[in-house]
């Protein structure tokens, strides 16, 4: 970030910028996490100045305002996340959009953790976020979840959400609440093709969270996770700790 535009955080937090500058700075804020953090804190600080300036307003104002709100319709929330209900009668496409939004939230949380802990990998992380949004925008995006059962050693708990698009031939796996693999071992992800297992990469939990982007899974009908010796194996050497059948196109 350029030091010049970063210096504008104070003026922006005090609303001491022109409309054009505000619009420009807000575009910058969207890509500058440290700036957004600083602006949030400086705004809270400015609020203290407002609190210190508090004055008793005329009493008549209260009844005028309360009278007026009865005639003013409220805006809907901006968020696209709709709480899922048990009996969901919305069309499938909309349910998927909602799921996709929920997955995005999980992804955002996981990505956030990665950003904080592994600043070096910021570019990778951004690429994965872009990957995720591409997958979710694909017309045939599907979301499935692998729930950690007691399928074998090391498989107690954890959950992996898979967002996939067959037309793009891409998927993204998001793990949360994952246990650490046993010492000297890794979690390895496999795509199953009519019984044949092909390695899709290693899944490395960081505080229970993990991300893996997979390109080119072809006609896979299954996703499985096994515990393998460090660095992974050519073929699974143990029973899956997690597995799920993939939906067909």
């Amino acid at each position, binding site marked *: 970030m350029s030091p010049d535009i970063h210096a504008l955080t104070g003026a922006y937090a*005090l609303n001491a910028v022109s409309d054009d500058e505000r619009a420009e700075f807000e575009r910058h804020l969207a890509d500058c996490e440290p700036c957004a953090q600083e602006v949030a804190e400086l705004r*809270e600080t400015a609020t203290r100045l407002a609190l210190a300036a*508090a004055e008793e307003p005329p009493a008549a104002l209260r009844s*005028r305002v*309360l009278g007026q709100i009865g005639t003013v319709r409220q805006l*809907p929330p901006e968020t696209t996340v709709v709480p899922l209900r048990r009996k969901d009668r919305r069309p499938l496409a909309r349910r998927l959009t909602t799921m996709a939004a929920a997955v995005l939230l999980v992804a955002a949380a996981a990505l956030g953790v990665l950003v904080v802990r592994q600043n070096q990998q910021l570019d990778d992380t951004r690429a994965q976020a872009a990957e995720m949004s591409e997958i979710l925008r694909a017309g045939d995006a599907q979301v499935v979840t692998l729930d950690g059962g007691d399928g074998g050693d090391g498989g107690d708990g954890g959950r992996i959400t898979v967002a996939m698009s067959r037309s793009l031939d891409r998927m993204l796996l998001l793990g949360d609440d994952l246990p650490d693999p046993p010492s000297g071992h890794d979690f390895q992800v496999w795509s199953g093709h009519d019984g044949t297992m092909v390695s899709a990469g290693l899944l490395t939990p960081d505080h229970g969270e993990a991300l893996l982007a997979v390109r080119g899974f072809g006609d896979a009908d299954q996703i499985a996770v096994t515990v393998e010796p460090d660095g992974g194996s050519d073929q699974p050497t143990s029973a899956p700790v997690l597995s799920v059948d993939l939906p067909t196109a």
Partner: protein
Amino acid sequence: MGDRVRRVREARQESAGKVGAVGAELMQRVARGDEAAFEQLYDLLVGPVFGLVRRIVRDPAQSEEVVQEIMVELWRSAARYSPERGSAMTWAMTIAHRRAVDRVRSAQAAADRDDTVGRRDIGRPFDEVAEQVTTRLEQEQVRRCLRTLTELQRESVLLAYYGGRTYREVGDLLDTPLGTIKTRLRDGLIRLRDCLGVA
């Protein structure tokens, strides 16, 4: 991001119960159209909103009009408030400050281009603040912390916030280069933030 959200959340929890804390639950009720909840919100917010608008707009009748617009706007857009981005009080004050400044900037554009008008005002916002900032604890603390700023930092911050000036106007008023003003506004707020223990 996770850390930031957590920090903002912690900051909110710490401020719960202090002056200016607006509960998340109250905001949710207002967002759902609960008029009784809005009455509570009005009582929590109107003092600071009125004080801020009065400082910026000055004219009492216009100030009342603007405060009414702001309070109705808060009702209208309550569902757009997102706790991840900061406290409800700050959300409200950001809206209030913008509305007040919009009013004076449009009035200014229409009425005069005479930049000598503001010049005589330079000392006033802070003198007024200094007078007002004596009664409550909150005011005491803000006043004490304002004193830790350099004179240029303090004047810049107060002209910008209570005066509703852009940093360019502040630069003109204080005969100081723009780059310096930008830096003083930021440094001054940072010093104030640290002194007040925000976040």
